[in-house]
Structures are given as structure tokens and as C-alpha cells.
């Protein structure tokens, strides 16, 4: 048979079944839609980053350091304007802002900038066009969130440290900034020349120093960075060009798109399961036609080819619909994630994304249709002669079935790897899906088997019949439970994970006994703050000194030598290379991570453990302070477990610290497990009091102030008296985190909805599949005297149970997955929010019943005589 004839025959033979076939295959439409939407989103990000690359950085080259620029860098920067190269410096730090008119305070992210910044892109203000006036006096441009928090408006003055600034505008848009960051620390721009007047830059302050350089000639910025790389390394200056910024941002954001796309892959694979189930049911109905074709001389490959052509054609139609739908909804994701993205997403029609999505959809439809189509080989031509016929035998070792399974597995893996952009992640994802579906399938079958064994004799007939419908021959119960259950599993796991991540941060939660944090408290200020708290009857929960330091030697090896040993580079190069984890397997066993060796440590001293710590190895020093005396003294130090691993040190190893130029010799005496989720000061390294009590230090204090009004008043008073002290209201932080997690969760849930919607399409398909049987059953019941209400009640019981079983399977698995994620990955306590989960369960069950009844309405419209005539 020629290919054209095969397609023509396939098309003709599908004439009266196209609507049913299309419904079945539209189960992949939603998965394709999700993938196309995500692909469009990713491309839009790439376009947005490419268009806005220079504006994101605000310059062609940005230099940054955590300490004031060294002499060489300063001299270089000073020389650039003389050479006609514009530069602008910026200094950033967190500090309190106070609105004298209202008396309110808020932690803000100060950015003191020089004239000219930004060289590219516009900082938009309200009123418009006010940015250039920032430098004209002691002016400020503030984040609207800051003005709201302070109860201030444009025209008010703000006290920042020891200085006052006039608010001339509110910020509308800063290229490259993530809007949601203002929830944590709203921005406040000041002129750089007035920063000193604030008196905020003091010992221990965390200040970021930046310089922006305009070098517009192609390649000039990169050449400049290369030419001065050695200087920058020596003075610990990080450099970044606009191209590097673009590349790194594109990578990070498209990875976000890749991960979101994996959720679309879930929906697509669920749709594939729906296709497999529907094709199986469809081919069962086509058994008579297949038998006739076999009688007429059609070979098994010819029959297979005819129905494969139908599946491919319907798959293409379903995929095209899905691609169109994806194009329509691709604008939703950028809106959901707008506050989390540093760029404007530039959406458009992406032919590549549409083709890829449609192609993937067709492939999935065909791959999942293969196994049910192979079953046509078992249809005996004798079926054309009589009703009851043994199926034809196929060999036990069936190469074709094996090949179909292999094609299916390879398709799932290829799809996951393609979407994730990584073999490792894709393979892990594919394995995770396979395991989840396998467990769900087992659970589904187990539940159905259990339902079959229930003692139902005493139950009312309507309930008994509804239950029996679940496991009658040809039922689709396991498939529907699997598909719907998977959607429930996805949504419930997301919700459980979000709940358990946020729970420690809730007021009254396990880790949140204190709700007000004071930091950058100078040594001579802490008594004053303690007195303020005591006078108002507020409890001081915790206080901790912070001593900044660096590592000088580990086990006698200088950090420079350690760095040399890591990659065979010269000491300065290796030590000063950009901070990044080398990761396991990329360094020799027993060698420390470079980032751990070169970073600044903010350590503390005390003689007891605190509630968020647990001793793992070694001994605490209570009472023992030192070995030896004077400059030769050796002190014990307790390291957090992971940092000890990253430093490749164990109990008894020595570390020499550089504390503001003074060497401190220590021996690792113990390791601790730290509960980082608790909102308390936690430290990588803890020293005994005797070691650091006299070292230059700042303090952090935690207080418990129950009422919001009291917190606001206390913050104001502290800022007025100690302008350099930053105060954080932890309830606001929790709200901001909630907002961030909520946004991300919403985006993920939006895509997860595609999965659950696919589950409902599979349910519709199952209803359509059993349609004839259902009509026959209801007609028989009517003939025996049942009322329409009784027939409807049986159907309602059946669909309610289907929904309930899906919820049971999916939610049960989600509880397990949620616990595993909380325990093994996030290391937080696991608790179940029963009320929202119950709401989800009820909603899915009710929807399943509604969809099922709606799809079965034909049952109520047929008279017994009509049906019996058809049967005859």
C-alpha cells in the first residue's frame, strides 16, 4: 500500500471519530501550551537582556569592592577623567532612615552616587525628570515603599545618620534592579559628596564601593579590564563588563525558564499518559474494523500504519492548538514574575518556540500511542465472524513492544534533558517522574483493588453500584486516578514545601522569639540600647559581638600557598580569582575550597552554646580559654560543620586568623550543626571570650517587642540617638519573604495548573470512552424501573469516588515528598497545613464530579427504545 493511500484510508476511517480522537489528543495541548509559554518567556528574557544589557549595568564596566578602593585603583580611576573617560563612583550600605515629620523609621538601602550615573538607561522618577537634580543639593530620591513606610512624601526631609536630605522625587524604575528587593530594603539615592556628612561609614559597617566607567568603543571595556587585571586582583576589586553582565544574567534567567519548563514537561507527559489510555480505549472500539481489514487482507503493519497515521494527525492538531494557546498565555508569566526580574521581558511570536513545542507535542502523542497501537496485532480476523474470539498470540519476547517501551523511555529522557538544558538535571528529573508515576500507578491500582475488596453488601444499592462502576471491565479508573492524582501531588507538594519553609519565620514560630534586630551597634552604644529596652519593659533576647577577620594560615600553610596548591597558579592570581565555589570533585581531596579560605569572616565570641546550635564533634571549652599566654597563646575555635568541611579541617587542626592585622592562633576544638533557618545571629566560627573580648567589634542585639506601634517608636528613638545603628523589624522581613516565595509559588502553581487541567481532560476522555457502556447500563436500569435521579446518583457516586481516590493517591504521595524535601533538602521541621490541603481535596473531588456528570449528560437524554434499536 502506498503512503498516500495509507494516509487517505486513515483519514477516511477516522471520519466519525475525529471529535473523540481530538478530545483524547487535546490532553497534550495543555502541556504544549505550557512549554510554548515558557519558551516564549525565556526568549523574551534573552531579548530583554540583550536590548537592555548596558542599561542593566549602567556603564560599560563596573568595578566593585567590599573595602575602599586601594591606592592603585584610586589612582587609575582618578586618571580616567583626565583621559576623557567618564567615571562615576557609588557607595552602598544599609542604614535607617527617619522621617522627622512622622517620626517613623525604616531600614533602607542607601546608594550614594556621583554625577553621571547611570551612563546608560534612565532612572525614572515621579515627578518625571527629577533624577538630574539629585546632585544639586542635599537631595534624595526614595523608593515609594520607603516613603509609604515612613509616612513621608515628596517634599519631606529625611534624616539619614547625622544629615538631613530633601526628598525631591520617588523612584519609578531603576534598570537592573529587582523590584521585590524593595520589600526587604527600599532604596534611597543620595549625592555621593554628602555621604560623609551622615557619619554612617564607620568601623564594621558593611559598605560596597563601586565605580562605573564609560568605554563605549566595542571591546574597550574588556580590554581595559584585562589590562588592569593584576592591579584589580591585588587590591581585591571585582570587575564586570556589560557583556559579562548580559551573559551571566541571561544564563541565570533562562535557567529559571528551563526549570519552569520542566513543570510544562510534567503536564505534557501526563497528557501522553492520557493519549495512551485513550488510544487503548479507541482501539478496543475499533477491534471490529481491524478484524474486517485483516479479513480483507490487511497485514499487521498496514493496520498499525493506518491508526498510527490517525494518532500522528490528531497529535499534530492537538499540538498546534496547544502552541496557539501557549502563545496567548505567554504574557502571564512575565506579569507574575515582574517584581522578581531585573529586566523587562520583550515578548514576541517565536517561530522556533512554536515549532519546537508543536514538534514535541506530536512526538509525545506518537510515542505514547505506540504501545496501544501494537495491541492491534492481537486482533483476530475471526472477530468478523463471531463475537467471542481468543486474541492472537504474540511472542513472549516481543521485540516491537520492547522497542516501543525503549522509544517511550528515551522520549521522556530526551524531553527532560532538552528542557532542563543539562544531562544531569534532565536525567534526575526523568528518573523522578518515572518513580513518582510508578508509585502513583501502584498506589492507584492498590486503591482500586482495595475498593473491590470492600465489604459492600450492607451499603445502599446506589453507593454499591457507584463503587462497582470503578472496577468494571474496561474501566479507566487507574488512568484517571494517576493523571488527576499527579496534578494534586504537584500542587500539594509545592504548597507543603512553601509552608514549611516559611513556618520558622512566622511570628510565634519556632525560630522567631525575637522580632527586632539591631546591628552595626558600636561597642560603646550597646549599653545605651540595652537601657532603652529596659526602660520600656522590652525583653532583650540575645546579643552577640561581631569581629571581622580573615584566615592567614591553615595548618601552618599560608593562604597564598594554599591557593597556589589549588590550581597551579601563582599565589596572587589564585587567591584573588573571582569568588566561586569550585565544587566537589574539582579540587583535590583534603584541599580547602578557595572561597572559604579567602573570604571575610564575621565571627563572635562566647563561652556557651546557643539554642540554634548543636555540638557535633569535639569539646566545648567552658572554662578553658587558652593554651599558653601572650602572643604565643593558642585558643580553641568551634567551626560550623559545613565550613569545616570546606576548609578541609578537622578536630585538632590549626587555623591562624588575621584580626584587623593582629594574628590569632587557634585549634579546631569542636564542630557544630547550626540551624540557619532560625532568625538569630549564627556564626561559622565561634571563639572563647578570652580570645576576642578586646578585639575591635560591633554588636548585634535581638529584642522581643510585641506591638507594632512599640517597635516603630523604639526604632525611631534608637535612630535618633544612634543614627548609625540599623534596625530590622523581622515581621516585615517575614512578610517580604512571604511575598517573594508567594510570587515564585504563584508562577509555579500557574504552570502546575496545566497539569491538573490535563488530568481533567484525561477524566473527560475516560468518561467518553465508557460512554456506550454507561448508556447501556443506565438504559437497563431504567428498563428495570430506576428513576433518572437514581441513575444520576450512581454516576455522582462514581465520579466523587474517582476524584476522592485521585486526591488520596496524590495527597498521600505529596505528604511523603513534602516530608522528604523538608527533612533531607531544606532541613526544616515538617508540619501539615490540614485546612488548605482539605480545601484542595474538596475542590478536586467536587470538580471531578462536576466534570464527570457534565460529560455524561447524554446518558439522561437517551430513551431505552433508541438504545435497544441501535443495539439490534
Amino acid at each position: 500500500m502506498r503512503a498516500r493511500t495509507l494516509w487517505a484510508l486513515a483519514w477516511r476511517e477516522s471520519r466519525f471519530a475525529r471529535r473523540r480522537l481530538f478530545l483524547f489528543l487535546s490532553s497534550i495541548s495543555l502541556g504544549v501550551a505550557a512549554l510554548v509559554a515558557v519558551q516564549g518567556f525565556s526568549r523574551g528574557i534573552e531579548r530583554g537582556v540583550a536590548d537592555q544589557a548596558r542599561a542593566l549595568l549602567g556603564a560599560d564596566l563596573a568595578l566593585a569592592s567590599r573595602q575602599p578602593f586601594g591606592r592603585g585603583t584610586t589612582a587609575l580611576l582618578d586618571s580616567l577623567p583626565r583621559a576623557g573617560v567618564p567615571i562615576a563612583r557609588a557607595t552602598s550600605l544599609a542604614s535607617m532612615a527617619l522621617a522627622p515629620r512622622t517620626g517613623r523609621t525604616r531600614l533602607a538601602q542607601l546608594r550614594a552616587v556621583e554625577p553621571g550615573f547611570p551612563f546608560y538607561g534612565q532612572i525614572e522618577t515621579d515627578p518625571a525628570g527629577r533624577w538630574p537634580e539629585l546632585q544639586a543639593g542635599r537631595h534624595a530620591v526614595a523608593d515609594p515603599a520607603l516613603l509609604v513606610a515612613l509616612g513621608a512624601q515628596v517634599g519631606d526631609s529625611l534624616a539619614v545618620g547625622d544629615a538631613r536630605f530633601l526628598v525631591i522625587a520617588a523612584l519609578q524604575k531603576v534598570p537592573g534592579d529587582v523590584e521585590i528587593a524593595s520589600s526587604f530594603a527600599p532604596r534611597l539615592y543620595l549625592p555621593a559628596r554628602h555621604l560623609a556628612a551622615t557619619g554612617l561609614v564607620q568601623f564594621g559597617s558593611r559598605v560596597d564601593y563601586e565605580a562605573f566607567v564609560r568605554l563605549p568603543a566595542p571591546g574597550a571595556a574588556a580590554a581595559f579590564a584585562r589590562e588592569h587585571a593584576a592591579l584589580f586582583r591585588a587590591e581585591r576589586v571585582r570587575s564586570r563588563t556589560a557583556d559579562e553582565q548580559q551573559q551571566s544574567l541571561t544564563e541565570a534567567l533562562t535557567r529559571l525558564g528551563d526549570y519552569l519548563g520542566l513543570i510544562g514537561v510534567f503536564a505534557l507527559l501526563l497528557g501522553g499518559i492520557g493519549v495512551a489510555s485513550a488510544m487503548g480505549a479507541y482501539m478496543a472500539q475499533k477491534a471490529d474494523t481491524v478484524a474486517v481489514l485483516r479479513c480483507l487482507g490487511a497485514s499487521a503493519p498496514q493496520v498499525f500504519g493506518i491508526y498510527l497515521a490517525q494518532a500522528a494527525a490528531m497529535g499534530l492538531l492537538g499540538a498546534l492548538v496547544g502552541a496557539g494557546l501557549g502563545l496567548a498565555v505567554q504574557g502571564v508569566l512575565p506579569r507574575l514574575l515582574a517584581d522578581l526580574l531585573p529586566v523587562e521581558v520583550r515578548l514576541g511570536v517565536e517561530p522556533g518556540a512554536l515549532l519546537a513545542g508543536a514538534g514535541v507535542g506530536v512526538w509525545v502523542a506518537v510515542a505514547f500511542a505506540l504501545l496501544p497501537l501494537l495491541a492491534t496485532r492481537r486482533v483476530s480476523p475471526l472477530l468478523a465472524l463471531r463475537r467471542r474470539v481468543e486474541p492472537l498470540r504474540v511472542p513472549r519476547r516481543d521485540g516491537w513492544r520492547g522497542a516501543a517501551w525503549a522509544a517511550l523511555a528515551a522520549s521522556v529522557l530526551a524531553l527532560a534533558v532538552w528542557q532542563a538544558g543539562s544531562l544531569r538535571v534532565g536525567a534526575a528529573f526523568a528518573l523522578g517522574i518515572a518513580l513518582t508515576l510508578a508509585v502513583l500507578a501502584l498506589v492507584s491500582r492498590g486503591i482500586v483493588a482495595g475498593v473491590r475488596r470492600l465489604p459492600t453488601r450492607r451499603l445502599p444499592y446506589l453507593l454499591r453500584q457507584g463503587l462497582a462502576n470503578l472496577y468494571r471491565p474496561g474501566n479507566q479508573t487507574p488512568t484517571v486516578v494517576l493523571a488527576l492524582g499527579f496534578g494534586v501531588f504537584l500542587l500539594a507538594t509545592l504548597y507543603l514545601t512553601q509552608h514549611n519553609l516559611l513556618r520558622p519565620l512566622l511570628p510565634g514560630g519556632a525560630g522567631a522569639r525575637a522580632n527586632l534586630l539591631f546591628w552595626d551597634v558600636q561597642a560603646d552604644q550597646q549599653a545605651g540600647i540595652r537601657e532603652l529596652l529596659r526602660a520600656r519593659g522590652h525583653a532583650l533576647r540575645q546579643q552577640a559581638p561581631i569581629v571581622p577577620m580573615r584566615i592567614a594560615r591553615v595548618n601552618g600553610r599560608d593562604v597564598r600557598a594554599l591557593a597556589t596548591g589549588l590550581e597551579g597558579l601563582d599565589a596572587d592570581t589564585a587567591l584573588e580569582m573571582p569568588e566561586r565555589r569550585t565544587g566537589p570533585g574539582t579540587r583535590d581531596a583534603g584541599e580547602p575550597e578557595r572561597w572559604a579560605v579567602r573570604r571575610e569572616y564575621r565571627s563572635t565570641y562566647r563561652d556557651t552554646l546557643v539554642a540554634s546550635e548543636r555540638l557535633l564533634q569535639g569539646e566545648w571549652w567552658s572554662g578553658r580559654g587558652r593554651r599558653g599566654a601572650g602572643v604565643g597563646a593558642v585558643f580553641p575555635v568551634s567551626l560550623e560543620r559545613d565550613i569545616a568541611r570546606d576548609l578541609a579541617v578537622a578536630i585538632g587542626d590549626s587555623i591562624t586568623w588575621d584580626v584587623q592585622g593582629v594574628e590569632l592562633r587557634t585549634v579546631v576544638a569542636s564542630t557544630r550543626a547550626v540551624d540557619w533557618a532560625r532568625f538569630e545571629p549564627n556564626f561559622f566560627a565561634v571563639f572563647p571570650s578570652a580570645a576576642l573580648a578586646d578585639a575591635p567589634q560591633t554588636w548585634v542585639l535581638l529584642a522581643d517587642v510585641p506591638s507594632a506601634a512599640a517597635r516603630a517608636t523604639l526604632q525611631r528613638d534608637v535612630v535618633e540617638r544612634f543614627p548609625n545603628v540599623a534596625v530590622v523589624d523581622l515581621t516585615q522581613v517575614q512578610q517580604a519573604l512571604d511575598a517573594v516565595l508567594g510570587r515564585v509559588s504563584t508562577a509555579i502553581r500557574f504552570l502546575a495548573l496545566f497539569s491538573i487541567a490535563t488530568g481533567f481532560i484525561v477524566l473527560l476522555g475516560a468518561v467518553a470512552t465508557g460512554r456506550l457502556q454507561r448508556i447501556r447500563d443506565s438504559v437497563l436500569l431504567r428498563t428495570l424501573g430506576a428513576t433518572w435521579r437514581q441513575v444520576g446518583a450512581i454516576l455522582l457516586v462514581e465520579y466523587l469516588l474517582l476524584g476522592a481516590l485521585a486526591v488520596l493517591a496524590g495527597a498521600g504521595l505529596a505528604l511523603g515528598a513534602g516530608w522528604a524535601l523538608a527533612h533531607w533538602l531544606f532541613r526544616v521541621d515538617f508540619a501539615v497545613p490540614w485546612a488548605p490541603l482539605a480545601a484542595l481535596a474538596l475542590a478536586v473531588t467536587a470538580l471531578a464530579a462536576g466534570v464527570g456528570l457534565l460529560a455524561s449528560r447524554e446518558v439522561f437524554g437517551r430513551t431505552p427504545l433508541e438504545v435497544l434499536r441501535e443495539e439490534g
Partner: protein
Amino acid sequence: MIIVQNLSKTYRSGEQALTVLHAVDFHIAPGEFVAIVGPSGSGKSTLLGLLAGLDTPSAGGVRLDGVELSDLSEDERARLRREKIGFVFQSFQLIASLTAQENVQVPLELRGEPDAAPRAAALLQRVGLAARCGHYPVQLSGGEQQRVALARAFVHEPRILFADEPTGNLDAATGHGIVELMEALNRERGTTLVLVTHDPELAERAHRTIRLADGHVVADTRNDRGAGAAEVAP
């Protein structure tokens, strides 16, 4: 044309074995019109299925045109059916989603013949359904459907036609018309015709009648109309 030797068929139903045909032997010559008769449950349809290669025997064999059917795989038997065999079923077995002409075209399309459409149209005209080419089976009467089925069975000029109760679902007059058409096509094309029926009048129209009872051939007579029946030598 067809040689049946020691043909037996046994079905298993759970623990029990049910033998439907017991060591049946006969020959059918090319061009013969043979009726296989017997009461319900005598094994007529089982025998027809075995003769047509739709099923495999438990013992013995069927040689069709010199080919032992049980030596062939299912696909090889399908190919043989495509080349040499036509079928007419009691319940017509037209494909509901194809028009009358498209149903008739199917055997030719399965062979990859390029002129399927005009040949199908010509044969539909021959059976008196030229005006119904574009109608679906559900739009045709029982007699019309069976005529379409006849056209489909003859369109690829098979060497042998098997008919299973072709008039079973038709009224007497329509049934007679169908049989006349079958006989006419049989005479025109020299096709061997094997017909299963429980209608004795229909059986009398055949050249020869093989009577089955309880899976055995109990009579094999030539129907010389007017001269009476005569035994056929095995």
C-alpha cells in the same frame, strides 16, 4: 482448489476441551459452488474460518491453491486473502466511516493498486448501486449494504469467495436477489464459491452441498437440479 485433510479444531474453555470439528476431509474444485449446511453449533462457521485461513486447525490442514495454510504466518495468510480470497459476512461488516465506494476500494488499496476508485465505481454499477456510491452504510438498506459487501468481495477478482450466511439478516426476497447476484458474478468470473447457510433453499442452488452435524461431515452430495442429489466421492 481447496484440499481439506483430517481437519480438526478443539477449543479450550478453562479446564474443558471442546472439539468443534472432527477430522473433516473433502476437496473443492476450481469454479465449484459449494454450500456448507448444518444446524447451529455444527461447526459451519469454524470450518469456514479454517478454509479462509482466519484460524489455525488443531489437527490436519487446508491446502488452498497448493499452499498449506498452517505453514503460513498470520501476515502471510493476510497477503493470501488479499490476493485470492473474497468475503461476504452475515452482518455485512462494512466499515461505517467509509462510503459505499470507499468500502469497495479497500481490497484494491491494500494491494497498492492505483485504479481502485474507477474499478470500485464500475463494480458498484454492476451490482445496481451506481447512485449510492457516496452513501455511508448507515444510509443504506440491508440489501444495499450486502450488495456493497458483494462488490467489495469481488473487486480484486479473487479466486475464491467465502460467504457466511449472506442472507441471514435479509428478508427472503432481498436474500434471493443477493444470491442471484452472487451466482451471476460467480459465472462471469469463474470464482469458486463456498457458502455457509442454514437455509435449505439457498443450499439447493449450489452445485454441491456438504452437510455438517456435530463437527462431522455427514453428507456430501452433488445437486444436479432435476436429476436429484448424488453422492460426491471423497
